[in-house]
């Protein structure tokens, strides 16, 4: 088992290194086309004027904040279930990017709320649960950092991540469960989209770009974590400095 764990990181490290430039290029490509589509093709909204264009960064960031939490919790669960260090490390690699997107979702939401609702912030269900998600990410990172024994840090923070996953459906359904100031879902699986196709395309492209960005950055962080945590392993010592 021990041998397997070492060898899987050893294989993962160079494979991730090869994948990063591809994900990074795709991220740049999707975001470039998405921004063009969002600012030059998508029309002015008949209700909100130009202010709605914040949606092209707000909704993809909010989606990523939830997706990444679920992915992080999934790796945490795999780590606890299989007692596998690389899984714990993947959870660690996802967390800062998830926290960043949560922060951005809150910030861009604030910039959208001011002109449309007349306020930067309200304590309604959607905004509050998203703020709690930011604290969950920060708590996960801080808890891991505060425990010196990395094995215990891995297990404790993984448990915290797992417990916190209940907040994700709360965020998602908050606009249905409670009477919120936040508007309902713009896109859903069951209903027809409530947006023009050109707007939807811009949002979809930006979301794809954010996905590719997250993959690239997570793999970069996973490689850093590998270098830091496995530095006594023979194969790490044999790596060429580049």
């Amino acid at each position, binding site marked *: 088992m021990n041998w397997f764990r070492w060898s899987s990181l050893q294989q993962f490290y160079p494979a991730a290194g090869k994948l990063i430039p591809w994900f990074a290029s795709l991220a740049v490509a999707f975001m470039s086309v998405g921004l063009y589509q969002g*600012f030059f093709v998508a029309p002015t909204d008949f209700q909100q004027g*130009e*202010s709605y*264009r914040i949606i092209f960064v707000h909704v993809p960031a909010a989606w990523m904040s939830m997706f990444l939490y679920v992915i992080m919790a999934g790796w945490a669960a795999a780590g606890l279930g299989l007692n596998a260090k690389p899984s714990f490390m993947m959870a660690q690699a996802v967390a800062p990017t998830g926290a*960043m997107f949560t922060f951005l979702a809150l910030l*861009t939401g604030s910039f959208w709320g001011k002109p449309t609702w007349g306020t930067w912030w309200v304590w309604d269900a959607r905004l509050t649960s998203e703020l709690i998600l930011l604290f969950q990410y920060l708590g996960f990172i801080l808890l891991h950092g505060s425990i*010196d024994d990395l094995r215990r840090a891995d297990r404790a923070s993984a448990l915290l991540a797992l417990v916190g996953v209940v907040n994700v459906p709360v965020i998602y359904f908050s606009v249905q469960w409670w009477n919120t100031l936040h508007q309902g879902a713009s896109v859903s699986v069951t209903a027809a989209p409530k947006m023009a196709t050109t707007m939807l395309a811009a949002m979809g492209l930006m979301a794809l770009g954010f996905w590719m960005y997250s993959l690239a950055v997570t793999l970069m962080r996973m490689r850093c974590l590998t*270098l830091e945590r496995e530095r006594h392993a023979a194969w790490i010592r044999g790596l060429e*400095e580049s």
Partner: protein
Amino acid sequence: MQWNSFGEFLAMGGYGLYIWPSFGMTALCMAWEVAALRVRRTAALRSLSRPAAGEEKAS
């Protein structure tokens, strides 16, 4: 295209002050994250080639 001039594009129908910080901060955060990871990688590689004595930590 709905913009007749660059000034009109920047003004965003009066919402420029809300739209541009949203996109700007997103770009800034992403650029910062990538830069920070590059710095971290360089530091990790450097500490591999020059292992400091007594910096052992449970792994």
